[in-house]
């Protein structure tokens, strides 16, 4: 009833290929975009922009990158943070060493560099699967961090190896204000999310899913395994690389190899597990859960419980609650938050009747 598809007929190929086939979904999507681009910049304050919205968007994009690889193509990886680091440092170096390179182009080149490294570390996936592959991507995690720390060239021979991002100038306009950073991040994330949604519906996306479900069967029906797996690594790393560049340039404003350690890889993995594997929306829900909930807990405990409990204990208490909530959600919905949304949609389709 609420979400009715009856009466919406598809009569030509163009309509069949739309991203969202139902008018309800299209309207919701456009409303959300208008809200994010035109309303949020006027109602949010600095704290929301710089501490909540920007990291939420960047981590959603990182989750999206990993989801393409793990959720769609079925290849496990623990090297996400390493690919982010490659993207961040490559974007920094392209911007530094090529005079007059447009800012957005250096993001893209950073992503391309990450894609290259991704292909390299994706090679073992042709022979090994599952948890064994996970371990070999772990090598990427340690190797990249080690290289970036020990080769001074990557950080422009900065003594401490920490680099600060250049001013965010695009077409002569300064995006350094908190609202500007948010809009820039949002634009990149929306563009890439749309791209991802199209990729997973393309021939390549269907190849990925075939490989995920059973790669021997996929090979038998003529899907080139080598190309499919390596493209999965390349495209996933591209997304992660751009996310890393955004993390360094629009969020923190500094680039430091230590910021992209194993903990970050785990964080991204948790985003897609909680959000939902094989879903675009799930990354945003998962990132919201991982980013917003601890901040919410910390703000609540800061205002409600401050002074009553020792601050150190309070912090540990928050961790316990957060961990408990993760367990609760995974028990209630093992397929992630995206599945909750899907269930809601299906139920509201037939509401108020039921089977």
């Amino acid at each position: 009833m609420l979400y009715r598809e009856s009466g919406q007929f598809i009569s030509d190929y163009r309509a069949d290929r739309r991203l969202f086939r139902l008018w309800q979904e299209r309207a919701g999507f456009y409303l959300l975009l208008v809200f994010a681009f035109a309303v949020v910049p006027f109602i949010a304050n600095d704290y929301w922009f710089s501490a909540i919205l920007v990291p939420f968007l960047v981590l959603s994009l990182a989750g999206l990158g990993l989801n393409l690889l793990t959720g769609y193509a079925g290849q496990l990886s623990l090297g996400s943070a390493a690919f982010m680091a490659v993207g961040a440092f490559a974007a920094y170096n392209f911007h530094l060493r090529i005079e007059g390179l447009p800012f957005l182009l250096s993001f893209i080149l950073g992503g391309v560099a990450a894609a290259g490294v991704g292909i390299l570390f994706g090679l073992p996936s042709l022979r090994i699967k599952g948890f064994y592959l996970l371990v070999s991507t772990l090598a990427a995690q340690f190797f990249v961090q080690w290289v970036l720390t020990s080769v001074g060239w990557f950080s422009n021979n900065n003594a401490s190896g920490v680099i600060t991002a250049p001013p965010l100038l695009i077409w002569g306009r300064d995006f350094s204000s908190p609202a500007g950073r948010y809009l820039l991040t949002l634009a990149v994330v929306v563009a890439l999310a749309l791209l991802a949604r199209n990729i997973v519906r393309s021939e390549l996306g269907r190849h990925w899913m075939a490989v995920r479900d059973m790669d021997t069967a996929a090979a038998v029906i003529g899907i080139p395994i080598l190309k499919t797996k390596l493209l999965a690594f390349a495209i996933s790393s591209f997304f992660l690389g751009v996310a890393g560049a955004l993390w360094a340039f629009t969020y923190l404003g500094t680039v430091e190899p230590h910021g992209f350690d194993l903990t970050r890889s785990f964080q991204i993995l948790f985003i897609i597990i909680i959000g939902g594997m094989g879903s675009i929306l799930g990354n945003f829900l998962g990132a919201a859960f991982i980013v917003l909930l601890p901040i919410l807990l910390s703000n609540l405990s800061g205002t409600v419980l401050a002074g009553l409990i020792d601050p150190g204990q309070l912090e540990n208490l928050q961790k316990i609650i957060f961990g408990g909530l993760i367990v609760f959600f995974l028990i209630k919905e093992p397929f992630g938050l995206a599945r909750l949304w899907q269930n809601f949609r299906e139920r509201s389709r037939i509401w108020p009747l039921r089977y």
Partner: protein
Amino acid sequence: MLRVVQQGLKLAAAIGLGSSLLSASLFAGSAQAANEQYFPLQSYRVGPYAAGGTGFFGGFIDYLQYVNTKEGGVNGVKFTWSECETEYVVEKGVECYERLKKGLNGAPAAATNPLSVGIAYATLERSAADKLPLITINHGRTDSTDGSVFPYVFPLQLNPYSEVSAIINYIATKSGGLDKLKGKKIVTLYHGSPYGKETNPILELLAKKYGFELTLLEVPHPGNEQQSQWLNIRRIKPDWVILRGWGVMNPVALKTAQKTGFPADHIIGNIWSNSEEDAAPAGSAAKGFISITTHPSGTNFPVLQDIDKVVLKAGKGNLQDPKRFGTVYYNLGVVNGILNVEAVRVAQAKFGKRPLTGEEVRWGFENIRLDEKRLKELGAYGLVQPLKLSCSDHEGGGAVRFQQWDGSKWNVISDWVQADRKLLRPIIEESSHQYAKEKGITPRDCSKES
């Protein structure tokens, strides 16, 4: 019907409710202007560096409490503060910075003191944009000493370059003069991180200048395995080992040194290898270990005695374990408190006896004049070094004392040893000017500042 509602509720709980609660809690609290000055504290009480965080912020809070209780604040303006846990993690520190920078209940923020290199780097530009001083006592970005390029950053007392320079000067006095350094063998064992590597170029420069043989050995993070490095040291047979450690790396270094037969009294720990928490876990292996410090530990200073009387005995102390009163990290917090409060006091003398903005407090920091007389008034003579900051010099002191571990506590074994700041200044300026060029900053003209 019911199930639809249930599903909807679940989803709302997941996203919608969360954000509305968040905003509700963010805007809670009245906005009544009070006659108070606020300190946002990006503290860390859990995680791997909790020992440092609880000590430092404990000392800092106790000193603010002391000034409030004893004198009713500065000229009637009381201090207020609130904490936000960072766990030493950069993003959490940034979130805390953004959350707290606006002040509390109308009391404006005076300065931020994250005590973390990573958070300091990430909030460096934000501080300049928000006009809020960023205090990185004893650490931080070396070239931020140049206040003409970094108006809002203060690596008070000692920056990393001064630190190594002072250590080399101390070795020189032990050897009988700077000319005696020629041919000496010095090994630096450093933590494999940006912090650890920061001083390597300066050590190389000093080695060239004074003609000592320098070997740089890296210990990968976290540093709980150092067998190969110490076997190397045994082969080199150095006269001195400089330990530029961090956390667990320090006690492991001392234990491994004992195993390989290197004497602890020829190991000199740097500013983050100088606490009780670094030496005590190594047990007997730490006996004789020397380290630098900008402030002696112990409780024999009038200001600490007074804090004990006014704050701790009254049950208002911040430390969970009262035994840590007077330890290195706690005293660093007290020193940090003294300097922050002094800056507020100096600024109030110029701008009026009221809560000040960050910009005004910055002026206060730049005009801190701590001579022996003032230090005696504060009861901190011998605890804080004489300090004179200016528009172009945001470090001020650059002197350290040396202390030795006797198996249970630190004993001060030297007077103030000064770093060769004249030698370091051109290197700092070169680096800060390069930063200014990258960022398109026009350095302030310090001759025009009053």
